[in-house]
C-alpha cells in the first residue's frame, strides 16, 4: 500500500538552529500517527512544513506516491491537507461561517459572497459535529474553547480533507469537549482519513493513535506501533531521547 503522506529527509533551520533535522515520517489512510516530544522538539515545525506555512530547506514530500510541491497553505489545501493549528487560526472578529469558509467563500452567481448559503452549510455541519453549537451569527471570540475548536474542525471536515493535521486539538478543552474531539478523530479515521496528531498527553496518544513518533531537538528518535510499547517506553524516549530496549 502506498502511504498517503511520505515525508522524506525533511530539514529546516531557523538562523543556525536546526529545528527539524533529517526527519522521515509516513502516514497511511485510516491511520492516526501521533507526534510526541518536548516543547521545541520540532513537532509543530515539521507539521507546518506539510501544511505549507514553512518551506523545508531540504527533503521531499510525497503524497499518494507522487512528489508534491507545497509552498503555501493554498498548495496544501489543493492536496486536501487541512490543518487545525495550535493557535486555532480563527479570525476572532468574524462569525463561524466566515471562518469556516475563509479563503474559500461560497459566491452567488454575480460573484458576491453568499452569506446565507454559508450560514446554512455551517448550521448543517455544526449540527453533526457539535449539536450544542448555537451561536452561528456571533463573532467566534464569544465562543467557548470547545466551540471554537469545533469551528476549526468543521473547516477541515467540510472541505473533505484526506490528510488532517491536528496540533494539540484538546489543549484548551474541558473533559467533555476532549471526549468529543476524541470521538470525532475516531470517526474521521474510520472514514479513511490520515491524521497527524500532536499532543503532550501521552495517555491520550496511546488511546487514539496507531503509531507514535517521538522527536527531540529536531531529530526523530523513533516511531513505534502503540501495541508494541508501554506508556513508560514512550516517556523514556521523550526524556532520554533514546529508543527503549525491547525485551524481545
Amino acid at each position, binding site marked *: 500500500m502506498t502511504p498517503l503522506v511520505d515525508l522524506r529527509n525533511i530539514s529546516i533551520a531557523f538562523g543556525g538552529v536546526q529545528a527539524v533535522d533529517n526527519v522521515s515520517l509516513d502516514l497511511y489512510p485510516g491511520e492516526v500517527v501521533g507526534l510526541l516530544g518536548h516543547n521545541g522538539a520540532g513537532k509543530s515545525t515539521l507539521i507546518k512544513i506539510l501544511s505549507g506555512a514553512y518551506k523545508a530547506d531540504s527533503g521531499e514530500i510525497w503524497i499518494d506516491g507522487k512528489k508534491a510541491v507545497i509552498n503555501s497553505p493554498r498548495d496544501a489545501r489543493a492536496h486536501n491537507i487541512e490543518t487545525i493549528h495550535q493557535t486555532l487560526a*480563527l*479570525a*476572532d*472578529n468574524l462569525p463561524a461561517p466566515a471562518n469556516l469558509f*475563509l479563503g474559500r*467563500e461560497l459566491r452567488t452567481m454575480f460573484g458576491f*459572497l453568499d452569506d*446565507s448559503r454559508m450560514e446554512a452549510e455551517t448550521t448543517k455541519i455544526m449540527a453533526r459535529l457539535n449539536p450544542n453549537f448555537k*451561536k452561528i451569527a456571533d463573532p467566534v471570540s*464569544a465562543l467557548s474553547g470547545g466551540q471554537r475548536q469545533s469551528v476549526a474542525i468543521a473547516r477541515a471536515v467540510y472541505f473533505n480533507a484526506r490528510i488532517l493535521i491536528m496540533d494539540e486539538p484538546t489543549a484548551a478543552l474541558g473533559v467533555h469537549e476532549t471526549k468529543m474531539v476524541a470521538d470525532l478523530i475516531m470517526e474521521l479515521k474510520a472514514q479513511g482519513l490520515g491524521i497527524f496528531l500532536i499532543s503532550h498527553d501521552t495517555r491520550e496518544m496511546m488511546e487514539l493513535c496507531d503509531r507514535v513518533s517521538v522527536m527531540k531537538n529536531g531529530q526523530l528518535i523513533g516511531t513505534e506501533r502503540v501495541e508494541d510499547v508501554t506508556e513508560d517506553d514512550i516517556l523514556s524516549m521523550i526524556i532520554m531521547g533514546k529508543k527503549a530496549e525491547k525485551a524481545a
Partner: protein
Amino acid sequence: MSTPDTATRSSSGSQSSRKKSLIDTLEVDTRLLGMIGAFILVAIVFNIMTDGRFLTPRNVFNLTIQTVSVAIMATGMVFVIVTRHIDLSVGALLATCSAVMAMMQTAWLPQLLGIPLGHPLIPWLAIGAGLITGAVIGAFQGWLTGYLLIPAFIVTLGGLLVWRNVAWYLTNGQTIGPLDPTFQMFGGINGTLGEFWSWVIGILATIAALAALWSKRRDKLRHDFPVKPVWAELALGAIIAGAILGLIAVLNSYEVPAARLRREFESRGEVMPDGFTAAYGLPISVLLLIVVAIVMTVIARRTSLGRYIFATGGNPQAAELSGINTRLLTVKVFAIMGALCAISAVVASARLTNHSNDIGTLDELRVIAAAVIGGTALAGGIGTIYGAILGALIMQSLQSGMAMIGVDAPLQNIVVGSVLVLAVLIDIIYRRRTGKG
C-alpha cells in the same frame, strides 16, 4: 429557544430567555442607533443655541457639502485601520491629486496636448489622471508597507511630507484656478440636481432600500432562518424612507437667492420671469459620497476582498494560514485609499474653485478621527463604512455649530479633540458591556 418570529439568534443564553426589547426585535445595530442619537442631540442643542439657525435648509445644505470630502476619505480609512494600519498621508495625497488635476485642466492638457480650455473632455481627463495618481501612490505606499514591511505609520508619515511638497513642485507653489466649470460642479453649491431630479434620486433610493430589505428577508426565509415580525420590517422601512425623503425635502427647500437666479438668466440672455424661484436640491458632491458609501459597503460586506480585509484585521496569522495573500491585500487597501483621496480632491478643489497649496491640510487627522468616532477600532478587525460617515458628520456639525454660536477657534479644537477621546472611551465601555468585538 425562540419562537420563529423572534429574531436574535446571536444573543447569549441569559439574554435570549428574556423577552425581546423593541431594539432587539427591529434588529438595528445599537452602536448605529447611539451615533444617530448623538448626532441628533448635537443638532438639537446647536439649534436651540443658535435660535433655530442650525437646522435651516441653508445650514443643512452647507453641512452636507462641508462633510463630503472628509467622509469620502474616511470610508477608505476604515479599511486601512481595520487591517491594523494607518494612513497619515491622506491630506497630502489629496493635495498631490488636486495639483495634478488642476495642472491637467489649466496647463498640461491645453499646452502639451493642444486640447483647448473649456473642451468637454478636459474635466474627465483631469479626473482620470487624478484617480490614477491617487491609486498608484496609494499602491506604492501599500507595497512599502505590505512587502517591505515598513510600518504604515512611518511610510505614510514620510508620505505626508513627500506628497504635500510634490504638490508644491507640480504647481510651483501657486494657486491654480479657476478650474473648469464642469469640474466645479462636483464641489457642492455650483453643482446641484435641482428640485425635480433630487426627488427622482430620493424616490429611487427609497425604492432600492426597501427592495434590499425585502430581498434580505426573502433570502432568510429561503434558508429557514428566523426573520423579524412583519410590523418591525415595515417600521424599519418607514424610518429609512422617511429619512431619505426628509433629507431631500430639506435640501429642496433651500432656495437659490433671487440675485443669483437673475444673473443666470442674464448670462443666457433671458429675463427672469416675475416670481420665479428654484431650489438647490441634492448637491452632486453628496450624491458622489452616497455612491462611494454604497460601493464601499458592498465591498466590505459582499465581496471576498472585504471579507479578507476584516479577517486579516482580526487575525493576520489566521488569514495567512487560510491562504489569503495579506501582502497584496495591503497594497489593494492602500490603493483604494489613494483613489478615494483623489475623489475627495475633486470635491475639495471644486468647492474652492481652485487648487491651493494648503488644500487638505490636517485632513489626515479629521479623517482618522471620523473613522474612530464612527467605531473603527485601532486594534483592527472592526469598523463600518456608515459609522465613519456619521463620524465625519458629527465632527463637522460640532465644528460648524460652534462657529455659528461664536466659539473661538482654539476652543473649537479643544472641544473636538475631547469629543474624539470621549467617543472612543464610550465605544470601549460599550464593547466591554455587550461583549461585542
